[in-house]
């Protein structure tokens, strides 16, 4: 139990926390700019360096937002359950932040010696290296976020908040299943629950987005729903629910909820990139994935590639928000239980069969085998999608029909 044993994770945690909070603030700005561009507007571009006339394309906006939130009155309504009311944002934010402990932020950096600071072996870019059950941990923690939602809705002592909390929690719980099914295929193919090992496996087998396109689709949609972004943002539905489970929250507590939501989105994009888009891997330029040591250049390239992928996925998240209409609640549930779940099971079965055959016929993973796997994956995607769409179209049309004329209708209408 040396001192380094504690110091290294602490430094990593500090870097991750600071980076995440800054990133969340600036992603709010990016989202506002994206929204503006998609709607033919300019967006916030006037706040720059405080006290000067320098505008810097509005990059000072997060600072202004933060100061505004700090100065807002932290108002607590009289009718709430104070203990639960105060604890709900803490629960949801803690769950969202702890997720990042096991997420690798790139590969590793080589050992170095700067003055008195010296590292004997290469430093893994992960706060808790060597955990073999990262994905399980992430799932356990993201399930805890449901408690925050329920507590927030329940403790507000407000029917609208309560309904919003119920709907949100139902949504989160429903979409945990397709999310897990989408991940299980990856776990089967990679043979590990460790995110870093999964990334390295993709360097050999090919990215799982191409090998298991059906799993990718299922996981992507479920990740959108888990992060409660449009088209699944019923917790936020302004028109019909006033504001969902955080209606009664103001000031800093509301900010915690919003930041937690953004962290969910960032965590979801991390998972999408790590599990399906190859993590830090790009062919030919990111070096040997199994090497024990790497050069500074390779480390920098890996980190850059990883960050670029993350950024692309987050931009996709933000563009989707302005592209498709929001689901109604029954449609949302039907999508989760009747469509995503069968597709996820189909993907899991297909992957299991392929892995079993690979174990017998191509244990070394030749190129022909990879191409065959890709072809099979796409066939499964098309067949599954067609089958679900034809057998179970998402038409939730509940208008009265002519043949329903025997139904009693209130003649006073």
């Amino acid at each position, binding site marked *: 139990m040396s001192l380094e044993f504690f110091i290294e994770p602490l430094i990593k945690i500090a870097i991750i926390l600071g980076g995440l909070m800054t990133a969340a603030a600036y992603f709010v700005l990016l989202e506002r700019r*994206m929204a*503006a*561009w*998609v*709607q*033919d*507007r*300019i967006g916030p571009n006037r706040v720059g360096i405080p006290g000067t006339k320098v505008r810097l394309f509005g990059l000072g906006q997060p600072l202004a937002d933060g100061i505004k939130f700090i100065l807002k009155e932290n108002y607590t309504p009289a009718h709430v359950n104070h203990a639960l009311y105060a604890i709900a944002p803490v629960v949801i934010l803690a769950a969202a932040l702890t997720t990042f402990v096991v997420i690798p932020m790139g590969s590793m950096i080589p050992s170095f010696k700067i003055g008195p600071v010296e590292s004997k072996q290469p430093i893994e870019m992960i706060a808790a290296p060597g955990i073999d059950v990262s994905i399980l941990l992430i799932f356990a923690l993201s399930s805890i976020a449901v408690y925050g939602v329920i507590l927030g809705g329940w403790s507000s002592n407000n029917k609208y908040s309560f309904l919003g909390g119920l709907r949100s929690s139902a949504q989160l719980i429903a979409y945990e299943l397709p999310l897990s099914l989408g991940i299980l295929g990856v776990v089967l193919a990679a043979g590990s629950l460790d995110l870093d090992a999964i990334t390295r496996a993709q360097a050999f087998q090919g990215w799982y987005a191409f090998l298991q396109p059906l799993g990718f689709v299922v996981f992507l949609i479920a990740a959108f729903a888990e992060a409660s972004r449009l088209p699944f943002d019923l917790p936020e539905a302004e028109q019909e629910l006033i504001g969902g489970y955080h209606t009664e929250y103001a000031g800093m507590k509301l900010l915690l909820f919003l930041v937690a939501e953004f962290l969910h989105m960032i965590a979801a994009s991390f998972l999408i990139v790590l599990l399906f888009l190859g993590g830090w891997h790009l062919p030919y330029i990111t070096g040997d994935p199994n090497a024990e040591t790497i050069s500074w250049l390779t480390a920098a390239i890996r980190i850059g590639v990883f960050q670029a992928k993350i950024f692309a996925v987050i931009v996709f998240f933000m*563009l*989707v928000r*302005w*592209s*498709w*209409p929001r689901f109604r609640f029954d449609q949302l549930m039907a999508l989760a239980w009747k469509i995503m779940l069968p597709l996820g099971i189909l993907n899991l079965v297909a992957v299991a069969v392929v892995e079993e055959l690979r174990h017998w016929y191509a244990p070394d993973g030749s190129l022909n085998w990879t191409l065959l796997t890709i072809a099979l994956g796409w066939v499964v995607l098309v067949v599954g*999608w*067609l089958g679900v*769409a*034809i057998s179970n*179209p*998402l*038409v939730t*049309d509940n208008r*009265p*029909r*002519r043949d*329903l*004329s025997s*139904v009693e*209708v209130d*003649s006073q*209408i």
Partner: protein
Amino acid sequence: MKPDDPNIAWIEEPKLGLSGMLYLPLFVQGLTTTFKHLSRSLGGNVVTVSYPDEEPKIGNPLIYRGVHRLNKDEQGRVKCVACFLCATACPAHCIDIIAAESPWPDREKYPESFVIDELRCIYCGMCEEACPVDAVELTSLYNLTGRSREEMMFDKEKLLSVYDATKDKEPMKSPGMGGTAT
């Protein structure tokens, strides 16, 4: 109303085709629209008017309904004859006129005071429709600000000064606008 009422026309939704069931058209349409607007905005083609830096463009100042003005005739006298038609037509009751005996031989009355409450006004233009002598008109001045409610009560002098400020840019809306003035 009963469902089997013969006056009800029952409209059936068109059946979903295969592409509709697959949801793909929805995705493609949504993303295409998004990218179309995104590329247009990033090309600098935005609809925003950065107001203090650039002024909005008034399409046709003759039909824009902004701040009121009281017109003057050739001798510089106020055209108004204090007939109260504008105050009667005003749906917001924001025009307040006190009439007095006219000092000029060509009319019986003239407004001793003519006050328009610009905060109460809804800028519907009915006063200029109602005015028989084209005295009250709405200009294309949109930038109407004040520091107090009293400042926003435009009296006769202020309304006449608005006319002096805008008469070169916007001639009186006489014949073309259905007025009677020459």
